[in-house]
């Protein structure tokens, strides 16, 4: 692998370092974005290593490259890989093409680079970014795109300048034996590298370009119903329609507000009068336990009944009244709607169709409508239920919703759990066996016993890093860990109840705890996600049992120090999803209408303000009274004037700072001497370099050769070598230039003697 070292003259004219360093960063951004979006660590690492090696080499003014033969072999291998991936894998075509481009880019990084290669690398990087935009719409990608665009603009500008320099350097007339020396060309085309100007122009370009991008995003025709195409990551978190136990991990709970619930019939007692059952907002019911995982046995097709959108008409049903809860989803909800059990009426927005399952779980029919904030009213019976209410619920549910969960356990685990349940509830089981007509009553007693045992003997924790995934989750919790969170407690209870032939199932949702007196609403956050157990008995219908100890729960939900960052990111992610990803034709129409309305209102407000202002002026002229509108106008004027003054001041300060900094940047040291020489009839010509010009000046005006040479060398070292002289050196050089100027102003004879 040869290493090529460049001369100073090459560096001057080719501007390699200025070109390659941002280009390498650009390439790295492209490869990193693609590999992260695609989730390929291998590509990420190889891209990083390739760019890193090139970066180190470029910083040492060298170039590392493979022989072209190996590059061609690499391209052939990449093509082969592309063909294999297209023919024998199910990877989408654009991802496959992305892999191919990554490989080609890596190969080109180790090729001997000319302007054409730089261009190819830029184009490949751009295509890779476009490819990434096709597969990723996450929020983290947006700032990356913005940075990429900025950098791409900068690299393209430097490349354009470099191309111009290349052409100037290679230009050769017929009358010339060869191109001019790089220094001579450089003297004719460039005095200083326009780094600051490029940065300023970058903003002038990038801001309108990004503005155009945003306009294209807003105005380009969009399809309808984009919500389903988006990622599921930003849906309501803390709630899942399946539960998997036994995973060693620490659970983090966010403070993000998920739901807001208003209870119109509530008394002003901080919600204390609300029935306990109405505090548990159920999202889903899980009735199948297998391999430490809870699921609903009927899956997503379990909502056959249209939800009643009005309360039952029978007054006897409403003897104890209905609990009405107005629920506002603050995030994008899942398909499931949260409502307490038993909700007998759910009033959704007009365009949303809601269905319910036999377990009285509610869900929206059209998935796309669930991907927006919903506000709905849930009407539920308060507990305890009377006979008619239970009968009504049975009719609503249809037949067959009184069986408990299906529990599938390994035989030894089942035996062990049964033994534990028997040990805890042996006396009650005996009583149930003796009094079969009171089974429902004893079942409830059994459930209560298990609830009490769990609450009393097990600790609440969110740190499950010690759990053993090879064991059954409930077994691990009950016999080994002795601690866990709500899912473990509720799972253990549901499993034990079912083992004792008490119909029970797991319910997941949120529990209402935090009350906000200012807004008169309950606030439900992500950390309020909860799992509990529902036990059936003929006497009480499905009853809520919550075996999770509340004390431990309060203590263990302490937030880590970085929690706010996570919350912030989640909020941004949500807003991104809400405002950007699901921006479709309907949103486009809404935005257009809102903008038109806003513009009209703004115009009207301006007209109204002008009219009022005119009246105020008349009043001032006629009555000499300065009214409130005039005062406001004057205040606004003063604020504007102050703002303008502040801006001017800031500009001035910036200007002065810039002048101070200018001394440290590249400075044309010999300028006073050149001006003086020009006045003396020796102008600097484009055909001569600084060195040649000084040589002629030395001969013509008898200036000291060694001092001039030293100054020219310093100038060259600073300008072309990029080595900034020290303050001491600069001071001495300026003194030297001043001395030479003085010398030049002396009469010729005296000058010769002085020299």
């Amino acid at each position, binding site marked *: 692998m040869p290493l090529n070292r460049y001369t100073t003259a090459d560096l001057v004219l080719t501007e390699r370092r200025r070109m390659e360093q941002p280009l390498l960063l650009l390439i790295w951004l492209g490869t990193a974005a693609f590999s992260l979006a695609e989730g390929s660590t291998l590509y990420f690492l190889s891209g990083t290593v390739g760019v890193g090696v090139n970066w180190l080499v470029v910083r040492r003014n060298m170039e590392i490259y493979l022989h072209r033969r190996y590059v061609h072999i690499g391209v052939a291998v990449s093509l082969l890989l592309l063909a294999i991936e297209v023919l024998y894998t199910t990877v989408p075509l654009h991802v496959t093409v992305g892999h191919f481009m990554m490989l080609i880019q890596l190969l080109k990084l180790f090729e001997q680079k000319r302007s054409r290669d730089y261009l190819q690398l830029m184009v490949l990087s751009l295509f890779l970014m*476009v490819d990434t935009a096709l597969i990723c719409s996450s929020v983290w990608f947006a700032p990356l795109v913005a940075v990429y665009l900025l950098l791409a603009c900068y690299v393209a500008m430097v490349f354009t300048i470099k191309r111009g320099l290349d052409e100037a350097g290679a230009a050769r007339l017929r009358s010339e034996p060869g191109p001019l020396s790089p220094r001579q060309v450089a003297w004719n085309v460039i005095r200083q590298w326009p780094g600051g100007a490029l940065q300023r122009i970058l903003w002038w370009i990038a801001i309108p*370009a990004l503005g155009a991008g945003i306009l294209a*995003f807003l105005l380009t025709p969009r399809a309808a119903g984009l919500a389903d195409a988006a990622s599921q990551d930003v849906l309501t978190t803390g709630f899942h329609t399946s539960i998997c136990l036994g995973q060693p991990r620490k659970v983090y709970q966010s403070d993000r507000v998920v739901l807001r619930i208003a209870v119109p019939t509530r008394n002003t007692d901080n919600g204390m009068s609300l029935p306990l059952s109405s505090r548990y907002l159920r999202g889903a019911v899980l009735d199948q336990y297998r391999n430490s995982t809870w699921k609903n046995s009927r899956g997503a097709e379990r909502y056959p009944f249209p939800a009643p959108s009005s309360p039952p008409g029978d007054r006897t049903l409403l003897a104890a009244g209905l609990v009405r809860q107005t629920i506002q989803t603050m995030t994008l909800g899942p398909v499931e709607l949260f409502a307490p059990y038993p909700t007998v009426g759910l009033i959704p927005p007009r365009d949303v169709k809601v269905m319910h399952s036999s377990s009285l779980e509610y869900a929206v029919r059209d998935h796309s409508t669930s991907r927006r904030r919903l506000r709905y009213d849930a009407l539920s019976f308060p507990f305890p239920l009377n006979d008619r209410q239970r009968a009504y619920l049975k009719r609503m549910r249809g037949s067959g919703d009184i069986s408990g969960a299906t529990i599938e356990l390994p035989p030894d685990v089942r035996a062990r759990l049964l033994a534990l349940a028997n040990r805890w509830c042996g006396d009650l089981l005996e009583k149930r066996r003796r009094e079969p007509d009171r089974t429902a009553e004893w079942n409830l007693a059994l459930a209560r016993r298990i609830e009490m045992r769990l609450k009393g003997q097990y600790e609440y924790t969110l740190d499950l890093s010690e759990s053993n995934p090879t064991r059954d989750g409930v077994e691990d919790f009950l016999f080994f860990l002795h601690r866990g969170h709500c899912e473990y407690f509720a799972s253990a209870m549901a499993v034990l109840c079912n083992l004792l032939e008490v119909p029970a199932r797991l319910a997941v949702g949120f529990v209402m705890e935090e009350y906000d007196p200012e807004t008169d609403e309950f606030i439900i956050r992500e950390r309020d996600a909860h799992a509990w157990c529902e036990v059936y008995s003929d006497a009480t219908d499905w009853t809520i049992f919550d075996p999770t100890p509340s004390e431990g729960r309060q203590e263990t939900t302490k937030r880590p120090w970085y929690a706010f960052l996570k919350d912030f990111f989640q909020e941004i992610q949500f807003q991104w999803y809400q405002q950007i990803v699901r921006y479709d034709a309907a949103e486009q129409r809404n935005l257009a209408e809102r903008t038109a309305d806003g513009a009209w209102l703004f115009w009207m407000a301006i007209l109204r303000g002008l009219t009022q202002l005119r009246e105020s002026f008349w009043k001032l002229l006629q009555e000499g009274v300065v009214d409130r509108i005039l005062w406001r106008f004057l205040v606004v004027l003063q604020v504007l004037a102050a703002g303008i003054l502040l801006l001017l001041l800031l500009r001035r300060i910036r200007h002065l700072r810039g002048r101070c900094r200018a001394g440290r940047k590249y400075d044309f040291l010999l300028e006073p001497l050149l001006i003086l020489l020009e006045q003396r009839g020796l102008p600097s010509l484009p055909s001569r370099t600084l060195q040649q010009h000084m040589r002629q000046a030395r001969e013509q005006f008898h200036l000291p050769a060694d001092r001039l040479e030293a100054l020219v060398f310093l100038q060259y070292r600073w300008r072309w070598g990029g080595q900034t002289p020290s303050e001491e050196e600069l001071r001495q050089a300026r003194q030297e230039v001043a001395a030479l100027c003085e010398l030049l102003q002396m009469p010729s004879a005296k000058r010769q003697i002085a020299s």
Partner: protein
Amino acid sequence: MARRDKSTRRATLRVTLAGWLFLMSSLVVGLAAVKSQMPLMFVLFGSMLGGMAVSSILARNMILAAQVQRELPPRAWQFETVYFGYVLRNRLRRRPSLGLLLQEIAPRGVENAHGYCVYLPGRGAFRAGCRLTAENRGRVVLSGVRLATKFPFGLVVARRDIPQPASLVVWPARGRLRGELLCRGAREASSAPPSRLQGGQDEFVGLREYRQGDSPRWIHWRRSAGRETPVVRELAHPVPDVLFLVLDTHLDESEPLAAWQRERLLRFAATLIDEALGRGYQAGLALGTASGPRVLLPAAGVAARIHLLDALADVSDADNIPLRTVVEAIPLSAVRNAQTILLTEAKESLPPMVQANLAQSARHLEIVSPAELEFLFEDHPLIHPREAPCR
């Protein structure tokens, strides 16, 4: 206040090949965005188009903000590089101009290496060096300067033609003299080598007796001390070496190589004049022009050089005057002490009277025809013999 010419303030924009490809890529990205409905694809699509539009506006403004002034020497040798400069100034206070390309709007036969300015700061000035080569002798009219930039992205090139008429006199190309043609006249006149003295300084010849009218300052007092009559220093004005060229510009229509041969004679004449003036000769020239014979009396110095070479540069096909007329117009005093060289294509058909007249009046006469140039003159390397038209 004079109204500003709008044509000078007009810039044209043209999409480059890279620009077209970029535009097509943008459209593909747009289509992909509509198809996939991915939000960032729309942003990329808009940014690409927006970037191109902004770059066009920026390039146009940069071009319009720049002012150019050409610093061109008035004369140049054919096939020799002329270095000259463009002084660029930025009218705007804040906005810099970058990547400015400068090109001469010149007729065919002028090869121009583009001038380039990387960075022209706001309200700043820059002197961009440039060079050109003229391939044809004569007066070249440069109508103006074309200012262009591809900055910032090379997708669009903004161009502006700035009328700035200028004339460049292109002297015939300099070759190399093979023989010591210039020494011949002096050798034949006397055995002494030609004088190297310049500036009219006198030479000491000897002492003679004082005559009436001599300046007392000339008296050599030490030598006169022992004599009755004083002696004075006798000084002589050295006769400067004079080269007089007589150029036959008459074109023989029947001769297919006449024009080519005349050009060759012109290049020879230019080389000879340049060489002679460089050696301190006085040089003169007689040739026919459309308005009649033109005689430039022998003279030395920069001005003479310019006049002589300009006259050679200005020879055109219309200058078809017979040699006899030209010779008759030459004053005798011009060629009396001159080494005269007659350059003619038709040595054989030269009227005897012309030759006799010149031979009588000139110190030495040399007649050079194109056939003899092979031994006397080596042409400029860029004028290849193969370029000569076939007979």
